[in-house]
């Protein structure tokens, strides 16, 4: 699998996700500057975490207007796989590639700690190395991760099976106490209609090495590598 990581001014988790991808694929992913207008030949585009343009307007709003975005839209339209993590998820919603929006956390504070995610479907390129209903741990680090969408959008996402992950207790219960940021329906990540674009707030890329506290995030990158093998 070839991967390309897009770097916006203010992106700061590009090296983290590069390490996770290199662990999984054995290859160094391509780094693409936001000012480019075309993507290199790639199987996966990653929009990593950070504070693109300082989050100064709305998180992801300015990045969604970057010169590279038309190429990313074309890539999506052609059925390409895109992974947006944290600020990358925010950019995908601002660009209209995923529905909804990420609001300030309900507690109005930045939250940096591990959360537990329940896998809602395992038949996608992103989640195939997890089991449906499996719970895994992932660090979260965001101030604006409170997923919001109109009720009819949420029903549509539920109906079409487009909810990727929900915040849950370690034993898989989805309840308000396990929802760290107030996200509607405890949504932590969603898919596009074709299940090829995934946006999520937590950082599976920061848990791919036992030394850093676990490998709960590794199946995501291993699964992608297998699914998108040339």
């Amino acid at each position, binding site marked *: 699998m070839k991967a390309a990581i897009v770097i916006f001014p203010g992106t700061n988790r590009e090296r983290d996700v590069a390490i996770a991808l290199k662990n999984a694929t054995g290859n160094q992913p391509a780094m693409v500057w936001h000012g480019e207008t075309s993507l290199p030949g790639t199987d996966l585009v990653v929009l990593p975490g950070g504070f693109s343009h300082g989050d100064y307007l709305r998180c992801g709003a300015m990045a969604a207007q970057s010169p590279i975005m038309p190429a990313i839209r074309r890539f999506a339209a052609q059925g390409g796989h895109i992974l947006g993590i944290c600020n990358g998820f925010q950019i995908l919603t601002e660009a209209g590639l995923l529905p909804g929006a990420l609001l300030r956390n309900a507690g109005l504070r930045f939250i940096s700690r591990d959360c537990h995610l329940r896998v809602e479907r395992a038949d996608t390129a992103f989640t195939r190395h997890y089991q449906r209903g499996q719970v895994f741990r992932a660090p979260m*680090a965001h101030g604006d991760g409170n997923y919001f969408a109109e009720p009819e959008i949420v029903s549509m996402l539920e109906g079409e099976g487009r909810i990727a992950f929900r915040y849950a207790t370690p034993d898989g219960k989805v309840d308000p106490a396990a929802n760290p940021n107030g996200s509607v329906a405890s949504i932590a990540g969603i898919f596009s209609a074709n299940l090829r674009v995934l946006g999520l707030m937590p950082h599976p890329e920061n848990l791919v090495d036992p030394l*850093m506290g676990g490998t709960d995030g590794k199946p995501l990158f291993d699964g992608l590598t297998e699914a998108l093998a040339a």
Partner: protein
Amino acid sequence: MNAIVDASLAKSFGLNAEEYARVLAIIGRTPSLTELGIFSVMWSEHCSYKSSRVWLRELPTSAPWVIHGPGENAGVVDIGDGLAAIFKMESHNHPSFIEPYQGAATGVGGILRDVFTMGARPVANLNALRFGRPENPVTKRVVDGVVRGIGGYGNCVGVPTVGGEVNFHPAYDGNPLVNAMTVGIAHTDKIFLSAAAGVGNPVVYVGSRTGRDGIHGATMASAEFDADSDAKRPTVQVGDPFTEKLLIEACLELMATDAIIAIQDMGAAGLTSSSVEMAGKGEVGIELDLDSCPQRETGMTAYEMMLSESQERMLMVLRPDRQDLARKIFEKWELDFAVIGHLTDTGRIVIKHQGRTEADIPLAPLADQAPLYRRPYTEPVLPASLGETTDPLGLKDGLLKLIACPDLCSRAWITDQYDSTVGGQTVKRPGAADAAVVRIEGSTRALALTTDCTPRYCAADPRSGGAQAVAEAWRNLTAVGARPLAVTDNLNFGNPEKPEIMGQFVAAIQGMAEACRALDFPVVSGNVSLYNETQGTGILPTPAIGGLGVLDDAADAVGIAPSAGDTLILIGITLGHLGQSLWLREILGQEAGAPPPVDLVAERQTGDFIRAAIRNADVSACHDISDGGVLVAVAEMVLAGSVGAVLNPGPADIAPHAFWFGEDQARYLVATGNPTALRRAAGAAGLPARVLGRAEKSGLTLPNGVTISEAALREAHTCFFRDWMTT
């Protein structure tokens, strides 16, 4: 501004009559306003260290692994494999009280620049914070603002905040301390210094534009607070972490080329200190044309530009043939890039603006004739030692009260607001170990990092307190298995013009120096913050120590979490010292007695033993004994591991509360699956090793048979911040 420059204006700029007379002698005429501004900031306490310099020389600063000690932007130590760790701690105390969010945020930004200006990618931030009483109405606002500011800046620039310490005490009610530390990694052959060279070479300004913010911040940081401090809010700068992030990436990209001859961040006193220091260190002259200086506002004068403390700016001397290459890199990152001057052979700093010469000062006397004071001081009066105490509460209630107190309760409310995992190298996050452990990307090595100081010990006995701060940092690095290498210090004290404050300063330095020498733990960088007083009341003497150590293999690092079944063994000598202990303060309401003595020989011997035991894999968890004593250490360990423990009775010849809550130094609590081997090794090393009990699945059973449930323990440990911040 058409002020008449005279002795009275100079006084309002912080220069006394003698200092102003020296200015007149150096330039041989009445200085211009810009010149007076330059002298006043360069000779401020903040920039010149005029009260502290003679004493700082007593600190040991060299070791075979020290590449650059004090005098550069940050300290540099060799950590092996051709890599260097570059680190420093710096205060932003005064701004953080006036405007907590921006004060703390720009403190983080400033210390980051000190580190990346030397060619290092910042890999970790830490902090040392001191706040007033929680009951004081302003404290909550200050804590909230400072924590948000540290997080707001550090999270955005993408440098993990991995450690720190927090204390509360009434002495900080009007003068909180915000000390920020940054650690970076560079190649030993690619370290950038600030000495300018090459007459005619261009002087280049990069980063944010210059505005009117922070004018005279360095002078503010050199004076006490009075009731009008709120009026000083305009001297607090505003941080822009996004621009800082771009600046880091642009500088590191340029540093990979051979374009840079010298580089210096614009910190305190901005353009003035950076240009004066670069030219001064290089023994050349410098001429700046401020018409070319990127400006955020219109109509700025030379005085304003030279004194502005606008953030996120750097000054560089470039090879002339690499100027275009450099410009392209900064344009890519959408940062201003302007040639604002050149180096000369005159040995003078010349400032031009709109066709006029606004300043023309010889650099050598500006540096060499800076005031240097050997201020009078009195020896600290030491408290009488504490007599017998009786325990009114018993172990259970004493423990629950102690682990709930603001100085000992869980810091998760704070650390959960700091991104501690960005970078993907954080092996031990906040709270998981005595020191943060951060692996070096692409290497098996890891850095161990900590900040430490026990101000109540320093107040009671500054000399012993200074030594204790160094020893505790060394111990915390040791407790994760690291080899302690070097120290950065942040010396926070009151008004040095008061002999008793100067006495605290002198004694603390002497204690630190002793400990640094005994532990081979030199000071390689640091910062002094004086005049930490509000309306005449000083803070506790607070010489904060930032310690750095190295682990050859990150996988060897141990945390504080034991596994059920481990044996808990106390290593080191316990006498039951309760003077200045938290038990005494929280349970009996007294701050009394002498602090625990610091035996540096025992400290070294015990620490070397612990490090070897960790290397031999005899240790599954290790925690140094500090605030609150042994029982608090046990509670912290079982909470970290989500386990329990059953404890044996203490020795018959020490009162139970003194044994379990005493704060004797040079001790570690070790969890091991191999107690026989560990005790045998301790015996061979001549160290007491007492089996305290065993880690169990759940519940903490005290020696008197009383059990505290894990839930009750956790509730006590976590309730303070939650309840305080939601009321």
